């Protein structure tokens, strides 16, 4: 029997219909064997703990987490993965069509887990209900979609053969142009691209939030660990041992020197061959820690005797923001009614299912980095400084990104793998563990907000004062941006003549807070929008009417003194909610008349959000050309992190060029071949890169028409490698062979840049912070379980002014995904450093937590937007949490002032409101 010990025993099983044999280590996870030994990269790993379901495979037909099964347990059994299923299984093939049709995959990292789980369901239940789909897919987390499109796709699978594909042109629900790879298992994310035999790097991190340290005998330690190639510390950084995202705030060391400021901060990096690294016990690494006073929160950090994280940042205040117009104090003094309230929000984790991953290698003396990122251009700048290399010698090749939401704008593992590749001369890969990504990457800022707002008896706003402190953690990251954005937005989309908003970014010994969908505005909107409901109540005015009375409009100045002559869509958004609002109020009243244990309420909230950088240059460049063989090529560098720029930017380009996208080859993103389209953040890609794409398309069109010597109304057709131009009935095919290709290989080429027109803000925050805003209003009906303090949203109606919906289905996808994140922030998400560094203690919504969402798309064209389009990515979650809190108040009278409203907190608020 003992010879059954399988230390040296091969295991064989049937994988996607073929017998395979592997030699796993004892107790090796099936997910690891499938990916690393059998190269089945369609099996994704998100948590290695059964918390996310991304690695779901079928074993003898039953869905299991491949990360929770020993490979030996698969012996003799039938294992099926997505890539195998879509080749042979009719349910999987129909599902593949349905997923694409409904755009059920955004980033695509959870898609294999979702689809494999769905196949198991469909084999049993060919036409499942919503509830059956939810039960079957409840074990797979998605952070992008809000799940509703996934439910639609699975429910609709049986009719997949009747689906009619939407046209690809602008304004239609074209399938994602990059969508097929997401549903057939061929998409390659950060952990899927390293060459075989690449070295593996792992980071030595601080177990303490505040400590000094000394490194011990590293050479001796390395000598005792065969297979370890090298150990990197601060001494190995040839350039600047610091990174950051904002000039003047480049303050986070690649490797800490002498002391660390947060739990999870890097002090060293160990590099070695994969097998040796897998066996390594990182706790044996020679480092001696001396824990020091920890400033855990804002109150700790601003206490008079608090130690300073940075000597030159007095009082641990990193920076602040300020916007003032009129005289807020005087206006509040003369207001007929006022409301004053305080709010507290928590750290929120981005919770993308793909942990940071990638590899780096040296190629002909140049550094190539293949990793998931939202900002290839910024990665290159950061690495140039850290590596002390010219930018031209660095190539960033982004992989597919399994969710970002702001955190993957900052570098994470890029400096480590770059330094390791340079030092070893070999390809080096790295994948963060779930624990590592949650403890070391950026978070949403916890906020402490005080607000006072007043109104005249007729409902006109009279003064708003806002003070917000934001826990920016140990390092700057995007903290300054949050500090700047919040005072500009804290008025909400309303006309307030007397306004003063202050913000401060406060350092603590917490993970760096950075960019997360909305840059602080979701926090400030909670305060402002819930205070508005209290004010409306005091005035005896309907909450929707109150907002409409004060909503911004064309030619009405914002709190920054910015006046838009056109494109202000907030009133349209609010008005669009009116039918649902009136109906929901009546329904709730009827329900509540006959129920005492459960109460229903409806809430609304408005929002606005400026697209692009705040009063800073923010260009995007797009290039396109025609090859001698007639191929039209678009160089698309706007990172698609699931939101859809790989579809939207080409749709805009095709419209501008006047062709069908089917004839266009799209390349990128890759810093060697795509011009810098800026970062995917600030809801800027559709607006800014979209404009660059439009300009490039128009410029190329002009060149083609000039070549053909025809008028501007001529039609261009791309077919069979030919560029055909038709003008007033005359058809001509361009003779490209007589044209000389340029250095890029194009006989005709256009490269265009767009930078939004903005102006600096003065000391009172007056100026032109953004060229455009997008507008939104959400409505939610909730049911509150009085005794247990549970809030269950029953349905959402979301009105969004997007200027022009380039692809309406992508708009819906953004809205639903944003609402899911807003719901999580409102009801369950609270990251506690050192405590919730996994996906079972840190809860994000599951497929059973997101109710139906109706999206109302409004198109109030913006003069600056491409074809009128406005940004959308962040607007979608800003009104969600306050709408939920307003609905809870409407249902029960309980005031939620602390997010998330966990059962404990909501129950306490209910008791405070007089519920037994």
């Amino acid at each position, binding site marked *: *029997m003992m010879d059954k*010990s399988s230390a040296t025993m091969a295991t064989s099983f049937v994988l996607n219909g073929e017998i395979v044999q592997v030699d796993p280590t*004892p107790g090796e996870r099936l997910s690891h064997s499938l990916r690393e030994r059998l190269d089945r990269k369609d099996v994704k790993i998100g948590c290695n703990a059964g918390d996310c*379901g991304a690695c779901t495979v079928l074993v003898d037909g039953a869905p299991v987490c491949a990360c929770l*099964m020993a490979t030996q347990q698969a012996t003799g059994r039938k294992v099926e993965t997505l890539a195998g299923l879509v080749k042979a299984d009719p349910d999987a093939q129909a599902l593949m069509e349905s997923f694409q049709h409904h755009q059920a995959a955004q980033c695509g990292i959870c898609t294999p887990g979702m689809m494999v789980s769905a196949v198991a369901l469909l084999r049993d239940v060919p036409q499942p209900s919503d509830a059956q789909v939810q039960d079957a897919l409840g074990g797979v987390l998605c952070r992008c979609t809000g799940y509703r499109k996934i439910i639609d796709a699975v429910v609709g699978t049986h009719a997949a053969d009747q689906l009619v594909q939407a046209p690809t042109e602008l304004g239609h629900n074209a399938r994602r142009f990059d969508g097929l790879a997401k549903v057939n298992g061929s998409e390659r994310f950060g952990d899927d691209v390293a060459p075989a035999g690449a070295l593996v790097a792992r980071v030595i991190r601080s177990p303490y939030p505040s400590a000094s340290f000394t490194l011990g005998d590293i050479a001796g330690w390395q000598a005792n660990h065969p297979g370890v190639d090298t150990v990197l510390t601060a001494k190995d950084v040839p350039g600047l041992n610091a990174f950051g995202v904002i000039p003047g705030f480049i303050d986070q060391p690649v490797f800490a020197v002498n002391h660390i400021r947060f739990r999870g901060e890097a002090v060293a990096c160990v590099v070695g061959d994969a097998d040796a690294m897998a066996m390594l016990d990182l706790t044996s690494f020679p480092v001696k820690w001396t824990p020091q006073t920890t400033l855990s929160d804002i109150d700790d950090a601003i206490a008079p005797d608090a130690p300073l994280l940075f000597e030159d940042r007095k009082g641990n205040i990193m920076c602040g923001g300020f916007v003032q117009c009129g005289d807020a104090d005087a206006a509040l003094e003369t207001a007929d009614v006022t409301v004053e309230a305080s709010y507290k929000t928590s750290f929120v984790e981005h919770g993308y299912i793909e942990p940071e991953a990638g590899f780096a290698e040296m190629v002909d003396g140049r550094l190539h980095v293949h990793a998931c990122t939202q900002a290839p251009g910024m990665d290159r700048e950061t690495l140039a400084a850290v590596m002390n290399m010219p930018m031209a010698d660095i190539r960033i090749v982004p992989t597919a990104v399994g969710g970002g939401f702001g955190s993957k704008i900052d570098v994470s593992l890029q400096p480590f793998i770059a330094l390791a590749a340079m030092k070893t001369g070999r390809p080096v890969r790295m994948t963060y*563990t779930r624990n590592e990504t949650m403890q070391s990457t950026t978070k949403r800022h916890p906020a402490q907000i005080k607000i006072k707002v007043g109104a005249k008896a007729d409902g006109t706003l009279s003064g708003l004062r806002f003070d917000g402190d934001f826990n920016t953690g140990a390092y700057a990251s995007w903290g300054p941006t949050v500090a700047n954005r919040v005072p500009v937005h804290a008025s909400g989309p309303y006309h307030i003549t007397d306004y003063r908003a202050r913000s401060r970014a406060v350092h603590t010994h917490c993970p760096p807070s950075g960019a997360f969908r909305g840059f602080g505005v979701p926090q400030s909107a909670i305060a402002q929008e819930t205070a508005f409901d209290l004010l409306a109540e005091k005035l005896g005015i309907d909450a929707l009417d109150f907002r409409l009375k004060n909503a911004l409009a064309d030619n009405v100045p914002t709190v920054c003194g910015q006046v838009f002559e056109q494109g202000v869509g907030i009133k349209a958004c609010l008005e669009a909610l009116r039918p649902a609002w009136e109906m929901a109020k009546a329904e709730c009243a009827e329900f509540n008349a006959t129920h005492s244990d459960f109460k229903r309420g409806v809430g609304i909230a408005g929002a606005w959000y400026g697209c692009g950088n705040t009063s800073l240059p923010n260009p995007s460049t797009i290039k396109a050309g025609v090859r001698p063989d007639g191929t039209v090529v678009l160089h698309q560098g706007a990172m698609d992190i699931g939101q859809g720029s790989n579809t939207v930017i080409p749709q805009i380009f095709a419209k501008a060029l006047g062709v069908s996208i089917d004839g266009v080859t799209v390349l990128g993103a890759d810093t060697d071949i795509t011009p810098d389209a800026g970062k995917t953040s600030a809801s800027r890609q559709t607006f800014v890169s979209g404009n660059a794409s439009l300009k490039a398309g128009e410029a190329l069109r002009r060149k083609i028409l000039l070549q053909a010597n025809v008028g501007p109304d001529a039609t261009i057709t791309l077919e069979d490698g030919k560029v055909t131009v038709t003008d007033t009935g005359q058809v001509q095919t361009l003779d490209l062979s007589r044209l000389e290709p340029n250095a890029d290989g194009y006989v005709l080429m256009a490269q265009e840049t767009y930078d939004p027109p903005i102006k600096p803000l003065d000391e009172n925050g007056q100026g032109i912070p953004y060229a455009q805003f997008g507008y939104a209003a959400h409505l939610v009906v909730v049911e509150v379980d009085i005794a247990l303090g549970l809030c269950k949203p029953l349905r959402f109606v979301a009105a969004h002014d997007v200027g022009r919906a380039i692809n309406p289905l992508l708009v819906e996808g953004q809205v639903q995904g944003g609402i899911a994140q807003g719901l999580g922030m409102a009801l369950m998400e609270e990251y*506690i450093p050192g405590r919730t560094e996994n996906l079972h203690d840190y809860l994000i919504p599951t497929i059973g937590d997101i109710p139906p969402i109706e999206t109302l798309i409004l198109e109030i064209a913006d003069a600056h937007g491409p074809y009128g389009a406005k940004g959308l990515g962040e607007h979608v979650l800003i009104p969600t949490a306050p709408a939920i809190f307003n609905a809870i108040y409407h249902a029960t009278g309980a005031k939620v002032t602390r997010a998330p409203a966990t059962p404990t907190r909501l129950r306490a608020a209910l008791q405070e409101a007089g519920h037994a």
Partner: protein
Amino acid sequence: MSYITATTLEDALTALTTGPASIIAGGTDWFPAQGDRHFDGTLVDISRLADLRGVTKTDSGWRIGAATTWTDIIKADLPPAFDGLKLAAREVGSIQIQNTGTIAGNLCNASPAADGVPPLLTLDASVQLTSRQGTREIALCDFLQGVRKTDRAADEILTAVHIPDLPDGSKGSFVKLGARKYLVISICMVAVVLQVKDGVVADIRIAIGAASPVAQRLTALETALRGLPAKGLTHAITDDLIHGLTPISDVRATADYRQAAATQVIRRAITLALKGDA
């Protein structure tokens, strides 16, 4: 460092006598506990022991093999007294977890929030432990000794769960309180087995989990409710009858919240069990 796929129980027991070893069946608790650390011990896989899997009727009750998965239990043909166990089975992690996670694993892992424990307590379950020296039977409430602590000796395998026959007409229920719909660790959960005769509670067993280091039966409450009319029974459930809870404060809820919620969840579990009877 080895992986032993036991083909007989004897093999598995012998493997345990040769040195420290971890027993693995579904692996759904073992892998998360192991995390990303390298494992260099011995794993004894008992998931292929056919005798350890399945639900069977015995002369005096029911036997659930140790390696029976939660999905097996959901699919098993069992009387209504097991409805609570089945509802709990549907709450263990996700379908993926239920397909491989086993009943014995849930018990041996000894989490205060183990979904399987309260229903098994209401079923008066006992566990069978087998070693090379023989077998012994111990009541589940005695087997579970604390957080991550059981009475299992290192050379023993939990081989079966035994459930005695229940009073005729008994019905089970289970209610779990968590902060989201799926994949959630309980704030607290309650299982009930109830027998109503002629409109009166003839027998009632109530167990609560995640409100003390080990899930427990609420015997004072059971005594108070026995003999009462089923109609309006929930009104008889008062805080003063709920003794012995020692809830903790953690990321999921505060102790005070748990204590107060317990009463509510008990009422709801009893209401669910009473459906059709009152």
